């Protein structure tokens, strides 16, 4: 009934996996931040964009290439995130979600506006690192090395984060503090410092995704704003606050989008939102969400 070449199918699945990698990294950061800070971080897309710009500046100003950027950009942006948490988000603790949402939304507009003012809306080029140029011929399709790297590396980072949160002592503090911060603090744990570090970590993940995206999508002030709407839909589908849920849903929805591009291209931009609406109707807490 469909007349589809395997090549088209696999190349769209690959695009889907790439997008899924970014959805997973970003929704993972959102989930971690929401769990600890109870804040829906609308600035996440802008921070992702700034992560990519950070890589661009490291190259153009300091002459530091992709591999340096992969390490330094998340660290720099993580520190910037901790600064935001200490100076602003911190003050919203205990207030309604709406305040955090408005503040981070405002921050996103400011960051995007600033970068648009200085860099316009068109993209700045960022080259694929030497080591990852070229492609593999898999017989049924060509697999660009850089894209394979993005998928594998994102998956590794997501699983490492999952492991750290679900299987380590530090993660146990994090999970416990998500449930009952005042009791964890009464055990002698410095919970406010954990919250600051968690926000920094979530922002660092966004920046890492930004660096990974830079050679694929160029570096653009609006790159995060375009992506974040879909990522929020992913988070709603997966369920707010579930770590494995956000990873699985991120990759799965990337693939669903890719498949839709093959079979019914007109719907490829809306399919995620249709799924979101269906999930909200059937399981409002999300596929992996725990109802409180």
């Amino acid at each position: 009934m469909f007349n589809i070449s395997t090549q088209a199918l696999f190349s769209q699945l690959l695009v889907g996996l790439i997008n899924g990698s970014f959805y997973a990294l970003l929704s993972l950061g959102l989930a971690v931040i929401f769990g600890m800070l109870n804040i829906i971080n609308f600035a996440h897309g802008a921070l992702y964009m700034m992560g990519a710009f950070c890589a661009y500046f490291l190259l153009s100003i300091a002459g530091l290439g992709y591999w340096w950027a992969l390490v330094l950009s998340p660290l720099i942006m993580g520190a910037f995130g901790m600064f935001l948490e200490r100076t602003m988000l911190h003050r919203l603790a205990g207030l309604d979600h709406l305040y955090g949402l408005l503040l981070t939304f405002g921050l996103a507009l400011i960051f995007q506006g600033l970068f648009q003012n200085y860099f316009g809306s068109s993209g700045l080029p960022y080259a694929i690192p030497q080591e990852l140029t070229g492609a593999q011929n898999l017989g049924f399709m060509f697999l660009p090395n850089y894209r394979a790297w993005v998928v594998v590396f994102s998956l590794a980072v997501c699983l490492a984060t999952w492991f750290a949160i679900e299987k380590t002592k530090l993660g146990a503090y994090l999970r416990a503090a998500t449930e009952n911060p005042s009791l964890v603090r009464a055990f002698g744990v410095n919970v406010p410092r954990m919250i600051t570090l968690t926000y920094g970590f979530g922002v660092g993940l966004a920046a890492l995704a930004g660096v990974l995206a830079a050679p694929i999508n160029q570096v653009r002030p609006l790159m995060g704003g375009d992506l974040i709407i879909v990522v929020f839909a992913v988070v709603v589908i997966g369920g707010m606050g579930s770590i494995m849920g956000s990873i699985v849903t991120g990759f799965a929805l990337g693939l669903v989008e890719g498949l839709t591009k093959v079979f019914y291209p007109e719907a490829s931009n809306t399919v995620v939102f249709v799924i979101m609406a269906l999930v909200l109707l059937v399981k409002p807490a999300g596929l992996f969400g725990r109802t409180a």
Partner: protein
Amino acid sequence: MAEPQTAGAPLLEVKGLQAWYGESHILHGVDFNVRKGEVVTLLGRNGAGKTTTLKSIMGMVGKRRGSAEYEGHQTVGLTSDRIARLGIALCPEERGIFSSLSVEENLMLPPRVAPGGLTVEQIFELFPNLKERLNSQGTKLSGGEQQMLAIGRILRTGARLLMLDEPTEGLAPVIIDQIGHTIAGLKRQGFTILLVEQNFRFASKVADRYYVMEHGRVIDAFANADLEANMGKLHDYLGV
């Protein structure tokens, strides 16, 4: 009020302690003390301020005034993580078992604040049930087992003042007995215990002294030896 004779400097000295939850003023000047190695019980009706007193000592309420000194350190003004590090641990009324943590993770969660805590093996000797259920989800335990976990996890930390908020609430008599033996054993090992209880028959088996609270104040105090003599008053206070 007749303050029982006290010997030696108190480990915990609470004077004129006031506390607020948001706008509501809950404690209106609480005075009492606990000496090293004692089991002291706060009695009183629901809403008298017993739980709030424990939470205030732990630094878990919004605003505090007055004084609560532990080993000479003023705790009013400190954050609760700093207070915990002085060697005070709370077992909250709602038990506070974390559902996203396994029994083992719950048990190992509170960091060590001082040397001299019980080893995990010693905790298993007190509560053998925990050992068999280490990999269960914390909140899948029965109420009694959750209470054992909530007490067990603060024994590891080296804290010397244990504040237990209604540890027998809603539990079967056989479990209440087990917790009573545990508290008596902890006392023999030199732990100091501040207990909040509605069930003074249970408290009478372990407590050295009692304070009675009403409307956010301590209104009476007596030693365990005088419990029988005070029974009439106590029934009035507690409305039982």
